[in-house]
């Protein structure tokens, strides 16, 4: 007989309250996680979308890509540069962008001199293919040759331009970053190696933003863990006399533990399922302008964490069950 299920059927209200709290906390955590991922994509989607490989910066740059200089003609990989700037559309409206130029490779889209490829978010600002855009540092104009997806850097849409236009605009032949698709890091003279994640951490704004959001998610997970534990503890404290009586009758602690694990699994599982559905619905309905991205992997990972926390919280109550004294329960019941 599944005692856990029987009790839940009989005391629906009590378990509904616990389930609602688990739902609200997990939903809030998924929402914040979605925002963290959205902001992360908005800040460094360009880098995240790059294939796995190694990034190299000049050793003297002290892990700051803006201070790094790499020879454009390096044969070890793709040399590229990113500079924040702006473009004026045909209506004279200024758009903040991150200019990117790279040596010819399959890593970034190829661009002809005088052309520009823009992140698709600028299409929503009214910019169209064929438009001529200007920049104060550029002698000519840039013709919009097309749009690309998921290319944002430092919360700005990326503008892919030809190296000649870049050099015209920023007056430099040097590149900042060397990227190699080799999975193993290679020691290059005067250069420091970074994995993709390590390189993302060198971007100060990304690091600070993600650190704050990670802290919030961590605290939410810790607080929810404590809440799970407290709720199951309180529920079991109320039943400690019953556990003692059942133990006196010969019901094993294992059966009682299975009872609370069943309850934890049903309550947490149902609440998580609902919060996943609600967050995925939000993911579909949220306006494009809101940086929100909740991947299936992230959702599953967080759900797994919540499930483990719920299991630990319920197991903590198992200690009470182990300690429940049949004799004490009988004597207390008789008074």
């Amino acid at each position, binding site marked *: *007989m599944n005692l856990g299920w029987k009790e839940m059927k009989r005391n629906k209200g009590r378990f509904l309250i616990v389930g609602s709290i688990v739902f609200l906390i997990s939903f809030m955590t998924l929402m914040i996680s979605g925002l963290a991922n959205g902001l992360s994509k908005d800040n460094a989607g360009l880098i995240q979308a790059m294939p796995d490989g190694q990034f190299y910066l000049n050793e003297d740059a002290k892990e700051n890509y803006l201070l790094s200089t790499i020879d454009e003609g390096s044969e070890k990989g793709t040399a590229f540069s990113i500079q924040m700037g702006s473009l004026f559309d045909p209506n004279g409206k200024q758009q903040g962008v991150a200019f990117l130029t790279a040596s010819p490779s399959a890593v970034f889209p190829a661009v002809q001199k005088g052309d520009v490829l823009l992140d698709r978010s600028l299409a929503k600002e009214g910019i169209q293919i064929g438009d001529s855009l200007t920049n104060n540092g550029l002698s000519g104009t840039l013709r919009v040759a097309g749009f690309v997806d998921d290319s944002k850097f430092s919360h700005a849409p990326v503008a892919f331009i030809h190296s000649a236009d870049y050099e015209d605009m920023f007056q430099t032949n040097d590149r900042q970053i060397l990227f190699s698709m080799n999975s193993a890091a290679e020691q290059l003279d005067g250069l420091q190696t970074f994995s993709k994640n390590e390189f993302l951490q060198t971007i100060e704004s990304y690091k600070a933003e993600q650190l704050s959001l990670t802290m919030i998610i961590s605290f939410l997970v810790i607080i929810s863990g404590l809440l799970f534990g407290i709720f199951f503890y309180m529920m079991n404290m109320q039943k400690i006399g019953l556990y003692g009586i059942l*133990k*006196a009758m*010969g019901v094993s602690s294992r059966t009682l533990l299975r009872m609370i694990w069943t309850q934890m699994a049903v309550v947490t599982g149902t609440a998580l399922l609902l919060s996943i559905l609600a967050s995925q619905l939000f993911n579909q309905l949220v306006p494009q302008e809101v940086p929100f991205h909740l991947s299936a992997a992230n959702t599953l990972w967080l759900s797994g964490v919540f499930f483990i926390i719920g299991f630990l919280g319920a197991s903590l109550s198992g200690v009470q069950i182990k300690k429940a004294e049949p004799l004490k329960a009988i004597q207390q019941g008789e008074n």
Partner: protein
Amino acid sequence: MTTLELKNIRKQFTNGGASEDILKGISLSLQKGEVTALTGTSGSGKSTLLTIAAGLQLPSSGDILFEENRMSALSAEARRNIRATQFGFVFQSAHLVPFLTVEEQLLLMLDTAESTLGKSERTQKAARLLQLVGLEHRRHAYPASLSGGEKQRAAIARAVIHEPKVLFADEPTASLDSSRSRDVMKLLLDLTRELQIATLLVTHDEEMLNYTDRVIHMSDGAMARANSLIQ
């Protein structure tokens, strides 16, 4: 035929450095098909003796023999297993599981005793026993909707559904009025006879002794006298 035998049971409690003898060398044997009553004033040690006999606590010295098993030599798990499969319990308060129906209380006990019966056989057995205790019409009722007498009858049915060899009943009529108390005692006696159980009962109600086969009067942790009522 002896089912459970207590030999020279002593129990000492230490309180603030001073030790107190709660039981002073009690010996008794419980026979199949008989109700043995322990009676005496409050604090005479009768409930302590019952819990020791039931393996819920160990004596300071002395032996409890159940079918050649020395209870004090068994592990806690082995004693639990004996409680689950061979013993039945009726408490002063019925102590029914609040979220199980009357029928489910009985089925839980069959689960606990690891009964080899199939699902339908279990249900049939529960139905038969509920009919015997007059609760067949309340089989789907929850404890909250039962009267005191009904609760106690359900608790008795739960205590014997797995056909235990020994039934322990601690003041089973204490929370009932005289009429219901007599009903419950008659039921206990009938079941003891029918299922050939050895029943050990604690009561302070003199009238209820009429429904027992043997009475052991306890005073100050010792047996004052024992009367056999068997004709």
